């Protein structure tokens, strides 16, 4: 059985909820085994009143022009996330980062995920104004193109499709965006 490596450091999950969360990405989201190979673990941890419910982080070794030993970790903050449904909602967004940023690194050979904007084709089909949306967090969370992509993934490829956090500004993603994200998936990781 394929599942994520889930670590409940906070000790808050019942056995049933642990099993449910462990299988959530594989059973209920768009996922391929290849992407899971580089997702080292998902940690449920109490980070306190930190201002975030979760984040995606990745570590690699840069040797000359090559990138080696890439591994990613997703943190779910149990201070805010009290139910397994809430954890799944955040996990869907964070796995959206894993899916899309994995592709960007591999296909576009980016020199850092936040050093360059998302591909122009994505901006065009998503209707993002390049004067408003940027490669990083310099204009705030809502205007980081990578965060829009992660929300698109959650909206399109998880059961939690009713809450795209940028919809008031850019609307919900259309079919072309779904096709794009599905296509850019299938990452053959480094």
């Amino acid at each position: 059985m394929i599942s994520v490596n889930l670590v409940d450091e906070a000790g808050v999950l019942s056995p049933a909820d642990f099993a449910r969360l462990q299988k959530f990405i594989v059973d209920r989201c768009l996922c391929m085994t290849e992407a899971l190979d580089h997702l080292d673990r998902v940690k449920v941890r109490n980070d306190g009143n930190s201002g975030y419910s979760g984040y995606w982080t990745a570590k690699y070794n840069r040797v000359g022009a090559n990138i080696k030993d890439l591994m990613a970790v997703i943190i779910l903050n149990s201070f805010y996330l009290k139910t397994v449904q809430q954890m799944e909602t955040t996990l869907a967004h964070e796995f959206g980062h894993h899916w899309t940023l994995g592709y960007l690194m591999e296909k576009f050979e980016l020199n850092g995920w936040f050093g360059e904007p998302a591909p122009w084709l994505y901006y065009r089909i998503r209707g993002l104004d390049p004067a408003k949306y940027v490669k990083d967090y310099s204009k705030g969370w809502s205007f980081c193109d990578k965060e829009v992509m992660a929300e698109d993934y959650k909206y399109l490829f998880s059961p939690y499709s009713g809450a795209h956090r940028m919809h008031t500004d850019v609307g919900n993603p259309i079919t072309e965006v779904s096709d794009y994200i599905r296509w850019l998936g299938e990452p053959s990781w480094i």
Partner: protein
Amino acid sequence: MQPMTKELLEQLIVEARAAGEDTSDLENALTAAKAVAASESTLPFGQTKHRDTAEGEMVIESTGPAREEDFE
């Protein structure tokens, strides 16, 4: 990264209460959020960390904080 907002916090409290969870810590956080306007500028968005190694360079890129201990 999923930043917390007052609206989202209120929603989480409603959902957690409905599920029978203790929400006292979230209610305290909500009170603090109302007293002090939340500012995204204080959140650890998109941090990176670099460290030279014998082989090359270790890099951490995060949508939130960049912490080596996350990988331990």
